[in-house]
């Protein structure tokens, strides 16, 4: 279940892949839904699903970070520079994820309305924190998402490079916890 110095435990593996699928799904959904016609069947449903999923993803990210800091991490593979770059890139991935979640929350809650999560519970609003909140948070949400997708692409390329060019364990240990 837990990580070792050489392998990821299944919790970390599951968190990684669930995040991956959800993050890419949310990006695609967000990209598509902002141009929906007002009279589309999805005009209300798509944002509802996007926001509900986003709120749950935020919880998942917080749990993931907690899991990360209370666990050992498998040692990175590569030279000193690669390790350094990987650490920075991973930190930025987490920061962008948090930023996107927070700005998404700030768009929808700027007028005091909470966010309904799958008709399950309502995440309350804390009102407006700053002027033009919905517009500014909206812009940050959009561009942070583009930046995140750029970094995800880099992340995927790096993983494939490790797997096919360096022929090391980097990708395999994120797929299985057998050492």
């Amino acid at each position, binding site marked *: 279940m837990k990580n070792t110095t050489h392998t990821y435990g299944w919790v970390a593996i599951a968190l990684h892949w669930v995040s991956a699928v959800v993050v890419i799904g949310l990006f695609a959904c967000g990209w598509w839904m902002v141009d929906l*016609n*007002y009279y589309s069947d999805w005009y209300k449903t798509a944002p509802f699903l996007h926001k509900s999923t986003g709120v749950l993803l935020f919880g998942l990210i917080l749990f993931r970070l907690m899991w990360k800091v209370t666990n050992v991490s498998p040692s990175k593979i590569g030279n000193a520079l690669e390790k350094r770059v990987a650490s920075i890139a991973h930190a930025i991935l987490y920061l962008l994820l948090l930023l996107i979640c927070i700005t998404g929350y700030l*768009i*929808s*809650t*700027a*007028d005091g*309305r909470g966010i309904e999560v799958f008709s399950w519970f309502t995440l309350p609003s804390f009102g*407006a924190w700053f002027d*033009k*909140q*919905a*517009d500014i948070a*909206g812009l940050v949400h959009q561009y942070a998402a583009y930046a995140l997708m750029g970094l995800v692409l880099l992340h995927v390329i790096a993983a494939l490079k490790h797997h096919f060019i360096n022929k090391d364990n980097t990708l395999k240990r994120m797929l299985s916890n057998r050492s």
Partner: protein
Amino acid sequence: MKKRLIGAIIAAAISGASQAAEYVIDTKGAHAFINFKTSHLGVSWLTGRFNTFDGRFFYDGKSYENAKIEVNIDTSSIDSNHAERDKHLRSDDFLNVAKHPTAKFVSSKIVEKGDGKLEVQGVFTLYGTTKDIVIDAQKIGEGKDPWGGYRAGFSGTTEIRLADFGMKEVLGPTTVMLDLHVEGIRK
């Protein structure tokens, strides 16, 4: 600078033409409102307002021959009581406030139609497009206020079509009713 010059010319033209008193629209005390409403799906009205605007009018208390009104609206102050909708209304699907931050109405002629009804003719600039419009208006009242000032108030309505101003009409053909309630304090 250009704005000020135009303002000065208008003021000079008016003061030269008449003794009409200048009233400043009381936006400071929020005794003036620019509301709008538009149909929602044909089943109901969606209403909202512009929170930030300013303006003034000239009125001599008797006739409307020399009367005039001008109002400047900060389009980004649109408020329909829903942050997500207001964000959409400010975007380039609707007002595109980044490109067109102000709307403006300047009357050209005010005609008395009898029965207290007024026809305020003028030009309205919205979305960077200037069109002639007519506001059906009436005087609500005037008189001394309890704090040493003198006030006069008018209200008016007009209906505009978004496409007439070059707006996109992403909801299909859209007309919007504008409701103005202006109370001015005499200078």
